[in-house]
């Protein structure tokens, strides 16, 4: 390497580091903001079941392990249960409404969109706590009677949204 290449290399690596750092800062600065910098509703609990870095790196494995334990063996502890993740993380925003999976502010999709990872869980699983389902005054579920729910809403693949 000659002396003229060295500053160039240094500059490139500095730029690279800066861009990684700023990406991390803007997109993963905390659980309370989505990719666009919007505030995501704050989780209900005081702390997650594991440190944030651990959860970010390993939540899919934890969920998969837990799903097999629950489904095959009937072990229904709350830790790492998808339903409990949703119960804690999908909370109403300032307007009192909870974000749905195709909304930018939904806890799961806000990060998965940035990471370009397709999220299949919610094609089957509920994307919000049960108390945010419509119910009749008698306590019976009436979305059976809601014609709007009969139509098949076109499925939106999250990381293609907005293209």
């Amino acid at each position, binding site marked *: 390497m000659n002396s003229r290449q060295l500053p160039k290399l240094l500059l490139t690596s500095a730029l690279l580091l800066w861009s990684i750092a700023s990406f991390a800062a803007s997109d993963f600065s905390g659980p309370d903001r989505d990719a666009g910098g919007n505030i995501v509703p704050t989780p209900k*609990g*005081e*702390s997650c079941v594991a440190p944030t870095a651990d959860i970010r790196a390993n939540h899919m494995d934890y969920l998969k392990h837990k*799903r097999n*334990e629950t*489904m*095959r*063996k*009937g*072990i*229904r*502890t*709350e830790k790492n249960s998808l*339903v409990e993740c*949703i119960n804690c993380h999908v909370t109403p925003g300032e307007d009192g409404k909870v974000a749905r999976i195709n909304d930018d502010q939904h806890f799961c999709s806000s990060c998965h969109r940035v990471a370009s990872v397709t999220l299949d869980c919610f*094609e*089957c*699983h*509920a994307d919000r*706590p*049960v108390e945010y*389902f419509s119910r009749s005054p008698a306590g*019976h*579920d009436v*979305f*059976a009677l809601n014609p709007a*729910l*009969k139509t*098949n*809403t076109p*499925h939106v693949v999250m990381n293609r949204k907005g293209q």
Partner: protein
Amino acid sequence: MSSKTNSSSNKIDQYRRRLLGGSAAAVAGLTLAPGLILNTVQAKPADQAVSNKNRWGLLIDTKKCADGCTDCVTACNTEHGLREIHGPATDAQWIRNVTLKNKSTGHTVNMPVMCQHCENPPCVDVCPTGASFKRDDGIVLVDKHICIGCRYCMMACPYKARNFIHEVLTDQLPVAPRGKGTVEACTLCVHKVDNGDGTTACADACKHGAITFGDLNDKNSLISKKLEMTGGRQLRAELGLNTGVRYQGL
């Protein structure tokens, strides 16, 4: 750290409450008829795996099943978020109301037919992926995460109990994840069983008392007592599947 300790002691409290609630319920017995004592099912601790100590089942008294009544079907649909999409030909039906008519005598029998939760389930035998499986406590389920929607199990089931989901679904309930391209059937309200509810949505809803839920392995359970005293038959017993759902009055 303190918050962590807090939340974990809260959890312990929760479990303790559940445990206490469960055992209190278990102590309470209800005399239904001379010789028939209803022992409430005790909840297993949430962190304990199910075991073959239990064998969950249903007993259906067809003589009590009323003509034209669909309460059990409605309750099942409500419990699991099943709703009308394109009509009965293709919609999922976890319970079907079947009417049998003896052509020579004209005698008719009404009965709900759901997954029979076989001890030797043909759907499990044929499944190429291992998605169709039986829990240790006898409940037959579909692991929709690995179901490829081949529908072999639907062909294999002698009771036509399984359904294929053709459409994209929305608004599924937390207790019953369901989705396009997978097969599903009666889960024996597995979420309620694991919660120690000691009943299913259908048994709960039947005001004619035609459906009894319980543990076939527990000699003192109401279902076992009823079976002992008044008998019960399997549908297509000749297949040797040893079903968990039994019928009276056929």
